[in-house]
């Protein structure tokens, strides 16, 4: 390996304390995927457009390809791996996605799930137009979005009823 300078990252990742040393240029997305093995977070463009790499930083959706790992120092990060229920069971949003056939290749899905997790926390009764706006920063090349919109609306309903 090169003798590049390394910096410390101490963060809470999916509820667990993590301490690592990284090259300053290490992207948060690569840190999550390749250093921590959290490969559920996907990288579709590495320039901040597709949204596949979206994770929650202190609860807010951020593009992990536009952040350096060192910028997560002192913060809490949640990835798609944290959204499920017990023992690998699907969480309610994930279940709604499955029922509505809201994913095909599934590459965009983790970034959409994280984005929508944050959205639903703030929008208990979203309209279809609001859901589409919330999704508009995430590209999906497979589904045409309709089933994703259906899934989000269904998840919002079951949150309210549930």
């Amino acid at each position, binding site marked *: *390996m*090169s*003798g590049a300078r390394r910096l410390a990252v101490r963060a809470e990742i999916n509820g667990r304390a993590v301490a690592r040393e990284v*090259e300053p*240029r290490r992207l948060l997305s690569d840190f999550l*995927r*390749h250093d921590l*093995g*959290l*490969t*559920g*977070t*996907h*990288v*579709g*463009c*590495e*320039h901040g*457009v*597709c949204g*596949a790499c979206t994770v929650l930083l202190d609860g807010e959706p951020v593009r992990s390809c536009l952040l350096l790992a060192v910028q997560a120092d002192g913060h809490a990060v949640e*990835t*798609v*791996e944290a*959204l*499920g229920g017990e023992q*690998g069971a*699907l969480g309610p949003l*994930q279940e709604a*996605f*499955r*029922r509505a*056939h809201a*994913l*095909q*290749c*599934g*590459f*965009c*899905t*983790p970034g959409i*799930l994280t984005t929508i997790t944050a959205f639903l926390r703030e929008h208990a009764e979203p309209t279809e137009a609001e*859901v*589409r*706006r919330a*999704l*508009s*920063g*995430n*590209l*999906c*090349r*497979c*589904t*045409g*979005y*309709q*089933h*994703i*919109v259906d899934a989000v609306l269904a998840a919002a309903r079951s949150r309210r009823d549930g």
Partner: protein
Amino acid sequence: MVAGAQGGVIGARLARNEDARLLTGRALFVDDLQLPGMLHAAFLRSPHAHARLGAIDAERARALPGVVAVFTADDLGAAWRPGPLLVPPPPVPGALFHERTQVPLARGKVRHLGEPIALVVAESRELAEDAVAEIRVDFAVLPAAADLEGALAPGAPRVHDDLDSNLAAHVVQGRGDVEAGRAAARLVVRRRFRYDRGAAAALEGRGVVAEWDARAERLTVWDTTQAPIPIRNGLAAWLGLSEDRLRVVAPFIGGGFGPKIMMFYPEEVVVPWAALRLGRPVKWVSDRAEDFVSTTQERLQIHDAELAVDGDGRILALADSFLHDTGAYDPYGLTVPLNSQANALGLYAIPAYRSELRAVFTNLPIVTPYRGAGRQHGTFVIERLLDLAARELGLDRAEIRRRNLLPKEAFPVAQGIVYQDFTELTYDSGDYAPILEQALERIGYRRFVEEEQPRARAAGRRRGIGIVTYVEGTGIGPFEGARVQVQGSGRVTVATGVGTQGQGHFTAFAQVAADALGVDAAEIDVTTGDTDRFHWGTGTFASRGAVVAGNAIHAAAGAVAERARALAAAALGVEAGEIELAGGAARVRGEPGRAIGLGELARRANPLRGAVASGSEPGLEATRYFGPERGATAAGAHAMIVEVDPETMAVAIEKYVVVHDCGRVINPLLVEGQVHGGVAQGIGNAYYEQLVYDASGQLLNGSFMDFLVPTALDVPPIEVGHLETPSPLNPLGVKGAGEAGAIPTGALFAQAVEDALGLPGFEILEIPLSPNRLFELVRAHRAARGEEGA
């Protein structure tokens, strides 16, 4: 055999078996692989579209810490050779075809932007990329053949020095007397149409990971390919390995859409070669910028076409002569332009047809099929010509289509031209009038044209409607196979060779097997795309997975069911005809208490001691193959209502309807997903996505910032109607559905936008459009008519 009698699992809207893994982040994609000792590769790619290669100086790169090796063409030895021709030229008399296939690393000259020149292997991806930046190459930049028409002009720069011109292929097909049709016509509409390049832009780029296991003497390659088996076989030959020393795995793939089947991408050869050479695993994963210049693209064609019709709008003849941009190499033969030739016939009775195609080498990235694969162009030509003919004759757009539809009695329809599978293009089955009528009904065509549009016009609003039809040749051969096995636990495994990129094969294939075996589809584990699990077959392309692999599974599961019935009959002391399979068990019809579980039967079929009858085979397992005699033709209609803002030329899609007939449907939920996704790509193709190259062959918009993929705000809800005319060509009666959504969208967009703008004499003859382009077209039209405000 009639399938579907048991429980109706075929045709059920089942949620998918594969989703749990994808939703929780556990699904394995190629870039997720992390192997001990793994090295990372990065390619030096040509920054020029056309240049002679002088000296390559990699000394500085090699000296960087963490760099393990730098390879150029000269290092590859016997592994340096042009790739195979994936699809040979069609057996059409007089056809001309020049085979010029891509090479692993450029030697002598580079012929398109992004062509790989050198490979760096390093301890990390970052270091590999650092080292790429240190390689010095002496380029002598050459003028580029970057314009399709210009590339055929005398004196144009030649992509391949050993050819006299850039003409790559010339094929003329046709039937009937076009001259006579023209002579008898009341009207001949002649136009030039242009359909430009776009990118499939799967959200996951391409990637290859290769690992040589010296102890097992096996090379394993994980590849984002749609065709793992051909890759394994070709790569074994290429690297001089026995096929069983090589395993190719296409794990979860983040979208394919066509460009992920190529034989071979340079990286698919060079990365495994480097892993063998270095004895360490090597990973290469493209970034988005790389994807824009190294993944194959499609769609640039220029058509000069004419349609001859009688006074009632009935088609007498269609003639088309077109240029097809094949990019710098033509490894995929003529699949794309042959599809264009076929699709121009549409759903219509066309007595005389002549189509001349010229494929042209250009200094642009290689062209291979991308969802639709040339079908768009043929559909654009015939649908636009019908619109223009209707306009000139004062006929309604729906009516001119209605009058020309092939009647139900006409099937099967032999079209007299050679299709991409080299059989005579033949529509196997269809009933087209209900497709058109249902689409018109669902969109509210009459009401819109008679009431809503006049009202909107009166209020100064530019609202318009479009209605187009299309055929989709699907499910071509040669063959696929499948192995179905009942395990001792009662669970069923299905293995087949096609790769999967999100189509839902894990579920649709499970439904086919579940239907034959009387088990729950969730009890069936499907494996696709791993050559260690199944090693015969070709791949996922041309909307063929459900048709060809689906029928192989149907046959294999049927054979297992038969064996289960025979074994159960013997065990329960009845005739096999009295046994039914349901609920995971074989039971005596009418006596549900007398039953034996499939798992128990499987265990008994694999005894550990004792004797078996001579000639008996172990296990509840069967392998079967299916090869259709020819492709099955699906058909459909799309309709939409749009409103155009005349200031910004923003197009708002108010309603979008698809009615389609893809034969028997295995899972309507999955088919709707395919249609929705296809329409979204079609909308992108029609109004957002265009790869813009300058005269030197430089790509000007190679990022998601500049190449706009539609978002959830751009794709409307899509209403889907299914009609089912089974295909007689396969026992399941299915046809493919993978491309239907994307085929007619360009033609539909052009028609609906033209209608919305309502400018006399204004015609849209090109795709992709964009707000800018539409604005320019309108301005030019006004200027040509001497109108104000031009």
